[in-house]
């Protein structure tokens, strides 16, 4: 797990926390957690979240997921901290962060003389301010927002017909498969998660995924009430490791939630 605590520079009006938790199957097989996440609120109260899920079929996907998350996250934070220009296009930033993460994976594969595909992972990078949001996403997992009081699927798990087949960041097709979602809306809550949480977070209506209110409403309400983000992260970890979630997915699970308060 690669979680970043609350940025001390944050004015404290935005809050973000979450956890990556090993799934029962990996625990049983003594396989490391192949999910990773990093998150922070910036000085300007923007929320940055990066989440990755290493593919079970790839030998070193835990290293791939950790590196993809760390590099994409740092890329965004550095850019946001150094930019005073609020008009900077966060849509370009998340796209560039994905490209940066891909490059870092290529470098690691070279350094360690392993195949790039051994590091295969998904990646989601999300930035949300009070006024706009942008997401870069490859592979499964999803992003759900609370926009003007309504739950909205901001970035869906992708096109794959089969539940376990994805195009990862390490694929030669990654550019074509990278999805960018953005909007200029009053976003108050954002949740970014890996596929291990999908069955809990969505219901299916005529083959379409719909964010499940009885899952998200308690989560966003909790995020607004909790003042200690470390305690919040523990609460999420407890939820992810629970029988309630694990009986629907034996996979590793990552869930990060952010709430944005504006004046």
């Amino acid at each position: 797990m690669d979680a970043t605590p609350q940025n001390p520079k944050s004015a404290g009006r935005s809050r973000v926390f979450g956890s990556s938790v090993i799934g029962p199957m990996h625990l049983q097989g003594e396989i490391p957690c192949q999910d990773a996440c990093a998150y922070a609120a910036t000085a300007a109260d923007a929320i940055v979240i990066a989440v990755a899920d290493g593919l079970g079929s790839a030998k070193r996907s835990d290293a791939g997921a950790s590196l993809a998350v760390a590099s994409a996250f740092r890329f965004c934070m550095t850019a946001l901290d150094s930019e005073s220009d609020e008009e900077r296009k966060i849509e370009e930033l998340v796209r560039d962060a994905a490209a940066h993460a891909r490059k870092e994976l290529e470098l690691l594969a070279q350094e360690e003389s392993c195949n790039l595909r051994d590091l295969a992972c998904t990646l989601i990078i999300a930035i949300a301010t009070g006024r706009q949001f942008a997401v870069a996403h490859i592979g499964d997992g999803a992003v759900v927002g609370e926009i003007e009081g309504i739950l909205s699927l901001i970035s869906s798990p992708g096109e794959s017909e089969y539940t376990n087949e994805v195009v990862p960041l390490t694929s030669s097709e990654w550019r074509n498969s990278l999805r960018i979602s953005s909007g200029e809306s009053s976003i108050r809550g954002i949740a970014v998660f890996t596929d291990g949480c999908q069955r809990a977070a969505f219901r299916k209506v005529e083959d379409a995924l719909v964010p499940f209110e009885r899952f998200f409403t308690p989560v966003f309400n909790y995020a607004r009430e909790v003042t200690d983000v470390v305690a919040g992260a523990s609460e999420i970890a407890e939820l992810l490791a629970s029988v309630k979630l694990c009986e629907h997915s034996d996979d590793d699970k990552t869930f990060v939630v952010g709430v944005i308060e504006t004046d």
Partner: protein
Amino acid sequence: MGLLDQVEIGNPTQPHCATVLLLDTSGSMDGEKIANLNKALISFKEETLKDDIARKRVDLAVLAFGGTVHLVQDFCSIEDFEPPALSAGGGTPLGEAILKAADMLEVRKQQYKQQGIDYYRPWLFLITDGEPTDMEPGDATWNQVVTRVHTGEAEKKFLFFAVAVEPANLGTLAQIARDRQPLKLIGTKFAELFKWVSNSQAKVSSTKISDSVQLPDPVAAGWCEVPT
């Protein structure tokens, strides 16, 4: 009340892995072969039930072809699967059997979609010891069958596995199963074969993959030799 107590689960159904066992019950399978196949189906159920993941996800149908093509078991959970006592007799209508199995998988996928059930790439698992008697290389049925299998693999509609039992014609099978080399069963090691199927399904239904499906090594599992 903690967060855990407050949240509810949106879609509590398990993803499914539709699997059609396509079993040769023609006259040449009579004797030890069919007896061992029947025993292996019982142990397949037992093995799969032992795996917490596979038992929830495998959605099994059995189609037999001996004289005619007949549905022995429509799609069901492994818990509900009642291993049949197959008997052998008649010709080998392999072409018709493959087409019917491929149709069944397509229908099943549509049902999953309608019911909001996630699913894995389905399996079409063929076990045969003979030459097809309802088609010959180059005839209309043959062309239809090989096109169906080849496009099915290429378009990721299903995974097609072929296992040859002595004295099956491996050359014929290899033309049908072009994308996945047919494997040759050692003797009548059906029990080992089905243990491997069970392990493979457990693996597939719990591993996220990119472009290729990686299964446990069947040679190491001790039931087959790779044909030369």
